[in-house]
């Protein structure tokens, strides 16, 4: 990745340009995802403190949709995009290359308060901007600074100006600063800083054209050389003196002490008694809304797919002579049933992502991290570990990616092992279904309790891990920047929701389609001779049924030893979204009548539990909560903590899930 992990000789070889490698990509641009401009076009890097508006500016410049939010650590992956701009002056950089319309690659780097940071994300910014060989870094760095907190934003600028290269400062949050009685004079600031300064508002897209013009102009200028420090002063001394001077000359303060709006809100949100109550009430409201509002949308989509779409497909296949064949089985019972089931839960996931986006963008989630710091501290994790865990409640995969914001390797490892126990939206779909089947009007409360159980599981397992594996876990004291509250914008909320929904569907769709086809294949293959031909075998006598029947007795102690339930759990190991489709497939093929899926599931639990279906379904929900989330999560874990720890994590999940399910059923049936 960088020269820090490569010998100088190897690095030199890698950088040598030979005819065999005519189109090299600069080192600073090799990481991340997204399109890049043509080779030889400039690279513009966006740097700045967390939550200063880098991703929003990136989206405005490139038209891309990087993840944005009002809390530190939103950018955990480097996003790349192409910025197309008009060529500026007659002798501009763009003009010399032959055309008025030019393009540049823009890279959105993770948040950094300085260039000597300790977290992997912040270190990455240094590696890609500073520690790259000459000619391998970005052609221009845009440092975003917060006008309301100029002094601390300028520390990074102070370090950047000591490096050779083009630098432009973009001042954000000027409206916030004005409310605090601070006026930023960009002309005076530019004079003091010695680099161009532009005021922008990425959230409302104002000042972007001006910034684009300045960037275009700067790219036509030769890069500056590194600035020498004054003799006799330490680096920090000189930087602080420079910052003091810049703030004094570049800003005007009214001197009035304002009681900030955020402080007024925090009186309630962070109140010793009301704060935790509000936190729990908000979490409860989020999940209640997702169950109540999403249900009719899900029902409508379910009707559409299982009715007109499936019937239409059957009719079309019948018209070409494939009615009743294994092809119809694959298309209708496999593809349409499986993918259709996934699609019916899109409204549920979208709703959850909208609510999470609103909490993030408003600034509340940073407060939630403060409120939960004591609890997290009890299990040896910093308050900041709360953030990836909350993301895990949406989807475990980005939650695990977000652990990169934790500075300590052991904290990252432990958080990665705990995140699979957070109840993601894919599990939510099954909980909602089981809740509506077994708990009637208490369905919402049952789903809420599953989240409480998830939180308890994380705390108890965290305590166990800390008391056994990580007795000497280093402490990471809470230091978290609280962003001011802001009104979430529709555009931003929609963009964040769409990015997450799309990412989720992209990750899950392939796996789910593959899973459903594999399940259908296993159902189509007879388990022995004389049981029927391919695609014409009863499910009980198929390979799928045989495998599930072999596993089912293991769950006798937990009250759900039905083979269909065991089969659904096998599928759930691959993707939780496919569990309901597996049930639908199994019962539809096995029975063929029009009895609702819910009745099948209810009967299955009543039979397998010996008349204690509620205890059995509670045990099943506990098992479902604790065992391995999906193969996509395993892939993310392997990337972050390696295959060994990932395998250990799977063992832990299965052991905990089984133990808790047995205890739940055995205790539950006595009540």
């Amino acid at each position, binding site marked *: 990745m960088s020269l820090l992990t490569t010998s100088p000789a190897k690095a030199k070889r890698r950088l040598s340009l030979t005819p065999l490698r005519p189109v090299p990509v600069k080192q600073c641009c090799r990481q991340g995802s997204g399109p890049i401009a043509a080779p030889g076009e400039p690279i513009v890097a966006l740097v700045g403190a967390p939550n200063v508006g880098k991703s929003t500016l990136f989206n405005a410049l490139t038209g891309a949709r990087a993840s944005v939010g009002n809390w530190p650590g939103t950018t955990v992956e480097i996003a790349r995009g192409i910025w197309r701009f008009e060529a500026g002056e007659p002798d501009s950089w763009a003009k010399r290359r032959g055309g008025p319309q030019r393009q540049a690659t823009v890279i959105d780097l993770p948040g950094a308060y300085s260039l000597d940071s300790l977290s992997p994300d912040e270190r990455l910014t240094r590696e890609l901007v500073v520690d790259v060989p000459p000619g391998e870094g970005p052609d221009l760095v845009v440092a975003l600074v917060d006008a309301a907190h100029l002094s601390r934003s300028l520390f990074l600028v102070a370090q950047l100006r000591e490096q050779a290269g083009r630098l432009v400062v973009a001042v954000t949050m000027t409206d916030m600063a004005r409310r605090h009685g601070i006026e930023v004079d960009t002309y005076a600031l530019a004079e003091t800083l010695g680099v161009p300064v532009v005021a922008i508002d990425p959230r409302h897209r104002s000042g972007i054209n001006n910034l684009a013009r300045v960037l275009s102009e700067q790219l036509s200028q030769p890069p500056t050389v590194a600035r020498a420090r004054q003799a006799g002063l330490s680096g920090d001394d000189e930087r*602080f003196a420079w910052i003091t001077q810049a703030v004094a000359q570049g800003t005007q303060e009214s001197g009035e002490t304002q009681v900030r709006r955020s402080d007024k809100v925090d009186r309630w949100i962070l109140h010793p008694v009301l704060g935790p109550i509000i936190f729990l009430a908000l979490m409860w409201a989020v999940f209640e809304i997702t169950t109540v509002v999403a249900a009719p949308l899900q029902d409508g989509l379910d009707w559409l797919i299982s009715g007109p779409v499936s019937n239409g497909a059957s009719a079309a296949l019948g018209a070409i002579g494939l009615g009743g064949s294994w092809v119809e089985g694959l298309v209708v019972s496999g593809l349409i049933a499986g993918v259709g089931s996934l699609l019916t839960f899109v409204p549920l996931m979208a709703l959850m992502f909208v609510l999470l986006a609103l909490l993030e963008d408003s600034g509340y989630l940073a407060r939630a991290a403060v409120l939960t710091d004591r609890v997290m501290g009890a299990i040896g994790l910093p308050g900041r570990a709360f953030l990836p865990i909350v993301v895990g409640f949406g989807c475990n995969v980005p939650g695990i990616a977000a652990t990169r914001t934790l500075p300590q390797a052991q904290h990252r490892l432990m958080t990665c092992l705990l995140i699979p126990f957070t109840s993601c939206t894919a599990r939510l779909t099954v909980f909602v279904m089981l809740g509506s089947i077994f708990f009637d009007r208490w369905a919402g409360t049952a789903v809420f309790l599953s989240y409480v159980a998830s939180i308890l599981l994380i705390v108890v397992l965290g305590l166990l891990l800390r008391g056994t594996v990580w007795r000497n876990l280093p402490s990471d004291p809470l*230091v978290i920047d609280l962003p001011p509250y802001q009104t979430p914008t529709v555009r931003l909320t929609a963009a964040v929701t769409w990015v997450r929904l799309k990412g989720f569907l992209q990750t899950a769709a392939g796996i789910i389609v593959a899973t459903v086809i594999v399940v259908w294949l296993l159902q189509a293959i007879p388990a022995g001779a004389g049981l029927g031909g391919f695609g014409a075998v009863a499910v009980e006598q198929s390979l799928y049924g045989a495998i599930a029947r072999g596993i089912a007795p293991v769950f006798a102690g937990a009250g759900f030893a039905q083979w269909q339930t065991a089969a659904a759990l096998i599928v759930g190991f691959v993707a939780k979204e496919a569990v309901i489709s597996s049930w639908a497939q199994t019962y539809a093929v096995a029975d063929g009548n029009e009895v609702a899926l819910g009745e099948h599931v209810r009967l299955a639990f009543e039979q397998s539990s010996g008349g204690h279906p509620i205890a059995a379904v509670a045990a099943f929900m506990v098992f479902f909560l604790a065992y391995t989330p999906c193969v996509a999560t395993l892939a993310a874990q392997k990337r972050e903590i390696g295959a060994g720890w990932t395998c250990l994590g799977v063992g832990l999940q299965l052991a905990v899930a089984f133990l808790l399910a047995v205890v739940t059923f055995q205790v539950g049936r006595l009540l």
Partner: protein
Amino acid sequence: MTVMSLAAAAPRQPLVVDAPAVDPAAAHRLMTLGWRPGARVQIIRRTLGGAHIIALAGARVAVGRRLAKELQVRPVSPEAAGPVRLPDRPVRLGGAAA
């Protein structure tokens, strides 16, 4: 003025930072947020978990209970306090940066 821990200070009491944090990681993080000797600081409130919400360099920063006990501050008189600002002259930190 007497040096005391941040945890011992009263809410809204005008304070000035006496020294960087002892823990290197916390010291660095706080330094980038404006915790530098001579900087003005004020406790806004404490949460149930013992976190301290402080006003530092014009922003709000949450500091954990244990760290608040280790951070050294000095009280200043209300007349001399004024708005929270950067120190007028450069100061030397214990840890080296970059």
